[in-house]
């Protein structure tokens, strides 16, 4: 499958909306294997190797949920992608086989000495998704563990241990929205998955844009022109899934990130038109929040040129 066919284009209407556009996923999946699997999993592992502290963090209380996540994701991969993965149980010992990477993981459930990494850190090395565990505690919903290789301008270390509603940069425009999302999350039923798409823009075709290296990649934002936008600017879509872990009652949050260079996006008339109108109607405060304000005129200029070339009415 080509990456363009599987790109989860996020816009459904001709104007900008900021809502909890979550929908239930049946069957309840937490991960997806795309055509870039091998390449992206290798990149993830390289990042984990080089910057483990930046890409993996956990609090001790998350361990039960980590084990639950490990079992869930390995089971899911073997159930829905049997040609690529298998998962077998012999007594208390489990064997997960990754045929795409020709690897085998053997472990005893809930026995920490049987694995080399923490459970979340281990299972995350077999999926393209970033994986976050949020603990549903008596005093709130807290980020308690995460394997985060492909963040869009945020720091796992900074948000570790934070309450869900304070994790996002405080922006008045989204405060009410965040409060509602939190309420929505606390009502997610066990074994149920919800999916939403969240979009932003990345300058350069780079999945790993953590806040920690902002001074390297962030300056590219000043270099966007009407001429280079097609190559430099990428629509970044995060397919975010929320799953209620039934045993611990905690939340698994998975993020699968897709990038599409604008040159490929504008080849689809419908996508071009929708993307253009959404960027154009994006409120100033949110354009700032998404970091688009810096190059919004250049971006719109590029898109208008494409619309004209393809003879599409604005």
């Amino acid at each position, binding site marked *: 499958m080509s990456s363009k066919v599987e790109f989860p284009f996020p816009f459904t209407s001709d104007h900008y909306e900021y809502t909890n556009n979550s929908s239930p996923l049946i069957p309840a999946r937490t991960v997806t294997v795309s055509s870039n699997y091998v390449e992206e999993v290798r990149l993830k592992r390289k990042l984990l190797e080089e910057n483990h*502290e930046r890409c993996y963090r956990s609090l*001790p*209380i998350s361990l039960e949920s980590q084990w639950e996540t490990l079992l869930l994701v390995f089971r899911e991969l073997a159930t829905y992608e049997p040609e690529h993965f298998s998962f077998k149980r012999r007594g208390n010992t489990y064997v997960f086989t990754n045929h795409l990477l020709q690897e085998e993981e053997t472990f005893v459930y809930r026995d920490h000495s049987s694995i080399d990494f923490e459970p979340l850190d281990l299972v995350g090395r077999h999926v393209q998704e970033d994986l976050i565990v949020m603990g549903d505690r*008596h*005093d*709130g919903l807290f980020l308690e563990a995460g394997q985060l290789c492909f963040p869009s301008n945020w*720091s796992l*270390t*900074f*948000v*570790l*241990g*934070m*309450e869900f509603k*304070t994790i996002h*940069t*405080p922006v008045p425009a989204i405060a009410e929205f965040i409060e509602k999302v939190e309420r929505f999350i606390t009502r997610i039923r066990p074994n149920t998955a919800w999916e939403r798409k969240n979009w932003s823009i990345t300058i350069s075709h780079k999945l790993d844009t953590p*806040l*920690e*290296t*902002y*001074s390297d990649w*962030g*300056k590219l934002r*000043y*270099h966007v022109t009407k001429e280079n936008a097609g190559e430099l600017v990428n629509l970044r879509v995060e397919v975010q899934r929320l799953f209620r872990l039934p045993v611990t009652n905690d939340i698994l949050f998975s993020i699968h990130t897709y990038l599409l260079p604008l040159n490929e996006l504008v080849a689809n008339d419908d996508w071009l038109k929708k993307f253009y109108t959404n960027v154009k109607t994006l409120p100033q405060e949110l354009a700032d929040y998404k970091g688009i304000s810096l190059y919004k005129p250049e971006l719109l200029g590029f898109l208008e040129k494409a619309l004209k070339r393809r003879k599409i009415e604005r």
Partner: protein
Amino acid sequence: MKKALKTYRHVLIISDHVHRERAKCKQRELQNRDRFVQLKVISQLGDGTVEALLSEQPIGSALILCGEGALETERVAVSLGYARNDIYIETQQQMRAFCSQCHHITSLVTHERFVCENCRNQLEPSEHYSSYHRAHLAYPVFIESDD
């Protein structure tokens, strides 16, 4: 939302030597016929000796921490079952800023631009606050001509 300290029936204050007078003051202020306020002064907060004391506190009590190292003690308290809302930190320390580039925390006098003590990046503190680190996130400063 934090409750007023006056609504608790039992309060434990843990202080280091430096903040002893301040803690005593707090104890006098809160102590009355219906409220038991215990003060424990130790050489340094976060030195690991307070765990037994913390876990012996009655349910529904509040905890006030005075001094440097309150953060470590707070984390111990949370792991022992305290709700984060029942923990109060009294410190003379100024604002803390979390470097988004190297994770070092610098204490600041004002909310203005500063240079990270560790990585020497020029940073600007933001409104984004972590109650876990008790620090504000600080972003690197770009000058537009910077390439």
